[in-house]
């Protein structure tokens, strides 16, 4: 069985940035496994601009952003395998993967970085009885068809859900000559970025109907039209508000969900709110030496933050590998343990230190990370989170145990946009025996 210091599952922006950073932090034995025929992940189908302004101070399209990282991976001589699907990872970090040339094979990794991204919620989200005629697509599938295969799925379109992919596709299909009649959103606010509402819907006069859903689909073989209705606070359709729209295509853009089948299989604990792993300050899961970053950890809207998060995961995985490698060399001399035996043991300091728990409450839905070990913290730690509703003129606050330490005024926070809060090690060290940090929204 081949050995690697770090095996990275997924060659999207998260996997690429993690690899580059691990290499720059002194680890040479790195392998990226990617199931697609090219590196770059979802960015390859995101041909619109709006990527990388924070990282590169210029506005790139998805493929251009990916290319910057792919080139770094190539220049640094980092090994990768394409068309290779990871099937399973064992507790002891044996990675089982499959491709045409090698068949089914196993690799032993000292550290694993999970970077599998996310997938679209299925059309089960469409909670209506009856036929499922042709002409119903997820927005991401439509995006791939139009942008990569040059195939237009339809001419008259209704979009359910105002996630970013749906908004981007509203514009794309309009420009390609389709008539996008309406975007319906179940919630009273949009799930997408504000800029996408402006430049994808407003620019083209496409109406966005908030608090609306599809209650009926007409057509047996092919979609002939859909009926929308307004919903009440409990998301139940209000009788008498039904409106019919004729169309041949219904796009669903009802959200993304982290792809964690492999993580679950190996025993990684999942946060039910994000559907991604629970991680500590090092972005390490409950399984030692297993790190996570990007959309597999929690769904991001900005690739810049994916790259930033992934770089941290790469750095932390590199530090971890160095610690276990040192241990392995010294114990080898004394009692001739093999790598695997050593790795199977737990790192001694893990249990000793008390972890600080991050608690999301009052409007804050989750935080990444969930716990902090101060001894493993860098000088700065970025805590990312999402809110559950739209709040105007509010404060984002952090309480260290009972004491309010951060109280930052915000004009508006919304579920569609990820928030962040910076903590410093210095700040935390001022509170010995700190047990919890509570993050909440406080209204003015």
């Amino acid at each position, binding site marked *: 069985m081949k050995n690697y210091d770090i095996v990275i599952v997924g060659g999207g922006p998260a996997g690429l940035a993690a690899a580059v950073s691990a290499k720059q932090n002194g680890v040479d034995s790195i392998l990226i496994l990617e199931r697609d025929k090219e590196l770059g992940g979802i960015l390859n189908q995101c*041909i619109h601009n709006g990527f990388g302004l924070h990282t590169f101070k210029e506005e790139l399209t998805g493929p251009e952003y990916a290319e910057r990282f792919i080139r770094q991976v190539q220049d640094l001589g980092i090994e990768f395998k394409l068309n290779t699907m990871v099937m399973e990872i064992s507790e002891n970090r044996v990675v089982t993967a499959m491709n045409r040339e090698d068949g089914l094979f196993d690799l032993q990794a000292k550290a694993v970085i999970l970077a599998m991204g996310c997938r679209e919620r299925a059309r089960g989200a469409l909670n209506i009885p009856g036929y499922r005629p042709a002409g119903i697509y997820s927005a991401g599938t439509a995006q791939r068809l139009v942008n990569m295969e040059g195939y237009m799925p339809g001419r008259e379109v209704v979009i359910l859900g105002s996630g970013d992919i749906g908004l981007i596709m509203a514009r794309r299909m309009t420009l390609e000559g389709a008539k996008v009649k309406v975007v319906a959103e179940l919630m009273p606010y949009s799930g997408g970025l504000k800029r996408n509402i402006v430049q994808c819907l407003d620019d083209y006069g496409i109406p966005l109907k908030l608090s609306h859903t599809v209650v009926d689909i007409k057509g047996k073989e092919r979609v002939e039209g859909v009926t929308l209705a307004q919903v009440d606070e409990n998301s139940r359709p209000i009788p008498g508000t039904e409106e019919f729209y004729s169309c041949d295509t219904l796009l669903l853009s009802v959200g993304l969900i982290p792809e964690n089948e492999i993580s679950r299989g190996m025993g990684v604990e999942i946060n039910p709110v994000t559907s991604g792993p629970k991680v500590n300050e090092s972005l390490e899961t409950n399984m030692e030496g297993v790190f996570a970053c990007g959309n597999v950890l929690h769904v991001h809207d900005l690739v810049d933050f994916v790259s930033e998060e992934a770089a941290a995961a790469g750095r932390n995985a590199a530090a971890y590998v160095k610690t276990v490698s040192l241990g392995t060399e010294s114990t080898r001399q004394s009692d001739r343990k093999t790598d695997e035996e050593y790795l199977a043991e737990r790192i001694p300091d893990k249990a000793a230190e008390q972890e600080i728990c991050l608690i999301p409450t009052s409007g804050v839905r989750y935080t990444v990370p969930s716990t902090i070990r101060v001894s493993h913290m860098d000088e700065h730690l970025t805590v990312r989170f999402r809110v559950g509703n739209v709040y105007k003129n509010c404060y984002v606050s952090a309480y260290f145990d009972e004491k309010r330490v951060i109280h930052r005024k915000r004009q508006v926070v919304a579920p569609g946009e990820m928030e962040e809060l910076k903590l410093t090690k210095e700040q935390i060290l001022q509170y010995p025996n700190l047990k919890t940090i509570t993050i909440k929204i406080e209204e003015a």
Partner: protein
Amino acid sequence: MEVKNLICINCPMGCALTVEMEGNEVVKISGNTCPRGEAYGRKEVTDPTRIVTSTVKVTGGKAEMVSVKTKQDIPKGKISECIKALKDVEVQAPVYIGDVIVADIAGTGVDIVATKNIELL
């Protein structure tokens, strides 16, 4: 005085801008996080422009389509003309990021460039 509320689209932060106008003159812009926001606000009320992205067919390459964009933003009113002009364009592989696919699209003085590398098959 007229007040316009806009959302800066220069980056996904989507800052809420307030543009105060005196006739056709912009007197004050607030709400932006960075200088690009101010420039956007000024432009959006006087001469709105957009970057346009699309795809064109490739022959002999590892993919069917290559993604492209306008190298700079073009007037909003020129978007559909620009897309029409791209309809029947076909290029030969290999194509590299930054290659000019169509020069001076729709009389805007702006080039259409490739945004993805497509190697020969």
